[in-house]
């Protein structure tokens, strides 16, 4: 099936010389790099093939009827209008199939909801239109926004060819960095409107909702760079707040974390001073008001 589709797609691609050079023609869900994403992919394929088999049976019957019982070929209509036996059969069998699908789905879901024993917690806050990452108890926090070259190219009538921008719309200035093989717990919230955090290769998507903290977890098996996007309409630039996660070996991650902490120290000190000043100002204002 998918081979035929690929050939068909290739045929169409050949007719479109402009795009053929960049053809991706991806047809299916990615397997991903976490246990959850592979389970989800397996479930997806299971349901897909069940649907294909049912479709072959049902569509086969329809096509058979359309071809065989044609008025123009002199077909004479029978006159039956029900069959209790058939109706019971085609009510019971689907229920059995559904049970067969529900069991693995429930198993995977239970695994997805098991947040215990995480090794690293990161608080992710959605803003219009960027992400903020805070490594809890690690004193590391930063914003992550769309890379400048993508941002320039995506302006209306920019004249910049998106195909020439590396990772167009899927690149950020400060990616999230996590260690390979660690169970990472993401705590999600938002400051303005609802956003959704989604990296397809990790298999998980969850809404970031103001006033709520949602959680999801992943454990990436392979180092690499994984890209995703905001998946809940959040206003004008909803399409321009990508997510990039760099998965590093533990040692490299530790080094990265250290460098971030070092860089953050002077900045944090300044921020603290600013906060104090702000409070002072507020106090003065209040005093004046009184």
């Amino acid at each position, binding site marked *: 099936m998918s081979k035929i589709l690929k050939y068909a797609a290739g045929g169409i691609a050949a007719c*479109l010389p402009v*795009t053929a050079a960049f053809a*991706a*023609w*991806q047809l*299916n*869900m990615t397997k991903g790099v976490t246990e959850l994403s592979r*389970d*989800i992919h397996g479930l*997806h394929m299971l349901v897909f093939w069940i*649907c294909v088999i049912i*479709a072959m049976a*049902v569509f086969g019957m*329809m096509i058979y*009827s*359309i071809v065989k*019982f*044609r*008025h*123009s070929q002199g077909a*004479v209509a029978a*006159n039956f*209008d029900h*069959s209790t036996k058939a*109706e019971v059969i085609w009510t019971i069998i689907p229920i059995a199939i*559904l049970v067969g*699908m*529900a069991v693995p*789905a429930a198993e995977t*879901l239970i695994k*997805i*909801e098991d947040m215990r024993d995480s090794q690293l917690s990161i608080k992710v806050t959605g803003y219009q239109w960027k992400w903020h990452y805070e490594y809890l108890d690690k004193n590391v926090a930063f914003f992550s926004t769309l890379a400048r070259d993508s941002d320039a*190219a*995506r302006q*209306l*009538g*920019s004249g*910049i060819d*998106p195909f020439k921008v590396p990772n*167009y*719309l899927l690149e950020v200035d400060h990616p999230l960095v996590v260690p390979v093989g660690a169970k990472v717990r993401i705590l999600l919230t938002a400051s303005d409107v*609802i956003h959704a955090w989604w990296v397809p290769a990790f*298999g998980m*998507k*969850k809404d970031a*909702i*103001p*006033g*709520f903290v*949602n959680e999801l977890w992943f454990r990436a098996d392979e180092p690499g760079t994984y890209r*995703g*996007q*905001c*998946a809940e*309409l*959040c*206003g004008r*630039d*909803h*399409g321009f707040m990508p997510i990039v996660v760099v998965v590093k070996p533990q040692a490299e991650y530790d080094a990265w974390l250290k460098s971030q902490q070092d860089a953050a120290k002077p900045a944090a000190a300044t921020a603290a001073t600013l906060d104090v000043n702000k409070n002072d100002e507020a106090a003065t204002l209040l005093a004046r008001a009184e």
Partner: protein
Amino acid sequence: MRTSTINHAGHGHDSHAADHDDHGPAKGWRRWVYATNHKDIGTMYLLFSLLMFFIGGSMAMVIRAELFQPGLQLVDPGFFNTMTTMHALIMIFGAVMPAFVGLANWMVPLQVGAPDMALPRMNNFSFWILPFAFTMLLSTLFVPGGGPSGGWTMYPPLVLQNGTSFPMLIFAVHLMGASSIMGAINVVVTIMNMRAPGMSLLKMPLFVWTWLITAYLLVAVMPVLAGAVTMLLTDHYFHTSFFQAAGGGDPVMFQHIFWFFGHPEVYIMILPAFGIVSEIIPTFSRKPLFGYDAMVYATASIAFLSFIVWAHHMFTVGMPLAGQLFFMLATMLISVPTGVKVFNWTATMFKGSLSFEPPMLFALSFLFLFTIGGFSGLMLAMVPADFQYHDTYFVVAHFHYVLVPGAVFGIMAGVYYWLPKWTGHMYSMKLANWHFWMSTIFVNVLFFPQHFLGLAGMPRRIPDYSTQFADWNMISSIGAFGFGLSQLLFAYIILSSIRGGVKATDKVWDGATPHGLEWTLSSPPPYHSFEIAPDVK
């Protein structure tokens, strides 16, 4: 009840019929503005819906033109969001729902053997609200800040960021809801009180049955939508905090309330199409509908289940495990009665004697393509997989498969089936065949690749995308332009059938076996349809 129906019809005949027979419908604009005749109101509903279909469709063309290539070429992202929002609102509330109400207005009295709808003045009111509602909605495109851009689902807090368009959107939705509720009440009252003697509930045509159930769904859920949007309004202007976290409110609560309306709404848009298809397939298979009782019970089961599955639209909001499991299982269960319907339609064709007039072609296309939408719906019901599919183009592909080759093709099948009955003229079968083939081919070119885009990871509601999605988007856009252009043919066929053509017989489909009271009347039917109630054996 039966006696009173006879009396009613007899009474109408004696005291009023003479007046009406003398002067017929009012002349000029008065016929339409003061309309109380079910056929005139039905015609207005259908033409209004056709107009909205083209307005909503041209917004879809803007969307697909912008998505033809990566990069922003045509519109600002904010305007793009307005287009997706308005496209949905107009297609749902302006095109699909009024089309079904128009079909109900025309066909319910004809199919139950009544002279008119039960509440003709309310009928007039429920139609005439709509042009005002949509004028208000469309005029938001010209107010400061532009039209609503938070999606047709109107999720707070995002929707509260809209400017002047926000209250206009809310009041437009209120008006549409009021119109729908009145239309639904009219259908229920007509079906319950004005059936011809001898037509027991289980002798009603399936189109009447599906509309009866749809009308109950409408009466049940439209007030819920009205409540939800009113709370949005007070959150914005009267400092309530129903949905604002900062004031102790809950943004997710809106989604629960909205989808408690929204999921039955999905069935409101498909059940009457089931009814239409259940009329057409037996006619052109020259064989009675297989499993009539099962079809009625399946429709009722789908309607019942539609009230307990709403949260499958929001699996990613973070629900307890038990909640997710419940909504997954309940959703999967819907495929059982839906499957029964598909099997019964197939069994109706089995050992029949099939011919392929335009209504049958559209019904068959419905059968195949709606089933594909059903399959993707089953896939979406699996919560873990939904975490990947949610808010991607896979969802867009799914609901367009059930709404375009589903609901819209159902409407087109119905129009091609009954148009000669309405106008008294046959339309060009050749053009209608062209319209069918173009629509069916292009609708697949348009929506099938969107499954691939969603699975490859393209979120929905984005005006621009990374280059890996470029190829399928271009194919999809080509399909969209083709589909959009094909619909001009539909409008032409309808208008030319209104203007003239070969005279249609009473039975219209003489070579086939159409059943039902509507075929016992002349084409077009007399102004007061059944002045004397027919006897149903």
